[in-house]
């Protein structure tokens, strides 16, 4: 079964140096006929189909469009052209602290983030203990997360996002900030989710991790899809291609 269908997705951003973001400026420039738009293509005609149970890795240099693609899959960004469809529930872990309010405590954030993902308060209360235990944050439950280390934030986010078995889990680099113990734990949890049929799309600069966890991978370069295939082949080609 196809869980994710990305069809001919192109994403362009407006990169004008002087962004017109006030009515006043808009009118002045409109009168002077000075409304320029410089476009930057972050993704160009990307198509990708992900089947149920796939663990797919995305590799590529900084700025190659990996996070942009994940945001389009998660529905956060709408592509300039093309379409992205998903089937089933999705837990996105885009960047550190997705869906957190840094002024709130870990406890409050568990409920807030749960609500963001569509879970009720009662459901989060039932699972609260397990979330905190897995994230190993029992001593920090009532500390504002702005005082957390990045690894601690990543642990909490990962722990919340994986408390249910989402049909699709999106992971953008956040696994790499945890320490080795948490890395082992989270990899084990991803294996558990895989066994339960969850489809995972992950971005990592840790090629070893991609090779270990993923069965498939794609390589993005300057917004273009260079190669798609089994993880080992793609990672090898990426490393060979990127060091040239």
């Amino acid at each position, binding site marked *: 079964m196809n869980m994710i269908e990305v069809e001919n997705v192109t994403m362009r*951003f*407006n990169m004008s140096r002087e962004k017109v*973001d*006030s*009515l*006043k400026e*808009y009118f002045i420039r409109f009168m002077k006929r000075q409304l320029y738009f410089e476009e930057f293509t972050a993704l160009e005609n990307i198509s990708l189909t992900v089947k149920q149970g796939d663990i797919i890795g995305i590799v590529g240099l900084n700025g190659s469009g990996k996070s942009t693609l994940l945001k389009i899959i*998660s*529905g*956060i*960004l*709408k592509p300039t052209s093309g379409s992205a469809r998903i089937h089933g529930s999705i837990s*996105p872990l*885009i*960047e550190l*602290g*997705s*869906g957190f*309010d840094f002024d709130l405590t870990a406890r409050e954030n568990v*409920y*807030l983030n*749960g*609500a*963001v*993902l*569509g*879970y*009720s*308060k009662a459901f989060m209360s039932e699972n609260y203990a397990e979330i905190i235990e897995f994230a190993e944050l029992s001593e920090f439950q009532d500390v504002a997360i702005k005082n957390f280390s990045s690894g601690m934030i990543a642990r909490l986010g990962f722990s919340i996002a994986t408390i249910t078995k989402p049909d699709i889990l999106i992971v953008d680099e956040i696994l790499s900030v945890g320490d080795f113990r948490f890395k082992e734990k989270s990899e084990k949890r991803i294996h558990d989710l895989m066994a339960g049929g969850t489809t995972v799309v992950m971005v990592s600069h840790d090629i070893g991790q991609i090779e270990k966890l993923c069965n498939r991978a794609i390589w993005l370069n300057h917004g273009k899809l260079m190669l798609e295939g089994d993880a080992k082949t793609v990672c090898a080609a990426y490393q060979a291609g990127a060091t040239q």
Partner: protein
Amino acid sequence: MELTIEDILAAISVVIIAATIILVVVNIPRLKALWPGFKKYRHLLATLVSRDIKVKYRRSVLGLLWSVLQPLFFMLIITLVFANVFKLGIRDYPVFYITGFVVFSFVSESTTLSLNSILGNASLIKKVYIPKYIFPLQKCLFALVNMVFSLIAVAIVYIILQVQVYPTVFLLVVVMAYAAVFSFGLSLILSAAVMFFRDVAHLYGIWVTAWMYLTPILYPLSILPEPVQNIVKLNPLVYYVEYARSVMIDGVIPDLNTNLICIGFALLTLIIGLVFFKRTQDRFILHM
């Protein structure tokens, strides 16, 4: 018989109401498709509204007190100054003023808070998918709660001045619903517009001040010369304020025209808001 401006507005409202019914019927499948999304995010909406309430009321006792004291304070000053200086000769001027004030405050508070609600949640919206209308809706619901609290102030005035209470007071719920729909529509327009043009916030701030004077809160509409009256009568808030006064002070159920105009303005604003918001929402993130 001469047509009044109310008659014309009421006629237009009938058209708007009919158009809305047709729009709703035609779009039933699309509206139904929205429902699962709303259901999924209702916990988030509840969490956000209760967080707003907690921040305002629980963390400071002053919060609740402020909601009650502020209208009372203004009422006192305005009554002392206006009622005496201008000799308006209105029965129960404090009640007259505070009713208008509460209605106007609701509209101005809900729209002003909504205006920045999407921009203010940029960090969230950039990292997870959330239907964006949740944020203006959150602020409108929060303002509605505040309005209910400020009714305590109205009750206090009633008790102190021993003003007569009519059974029509329950119709206040109706005008609150009208005003809420109107405010939500306006909130959708403003919160979307400010994503593209930041100075909308500034301009709206100026407008709200002007709007307060263009709404008969301090003065009765009847003191204005007729041509001016006819212009002021294009202001939707006139009808919401008059509705509230009619049920609170006169004990009279507002006539059909007033009801039609209230609904007409509310629906028109809501539809414009929904269409504008829907057409622009995908581009918000590019301007954050």
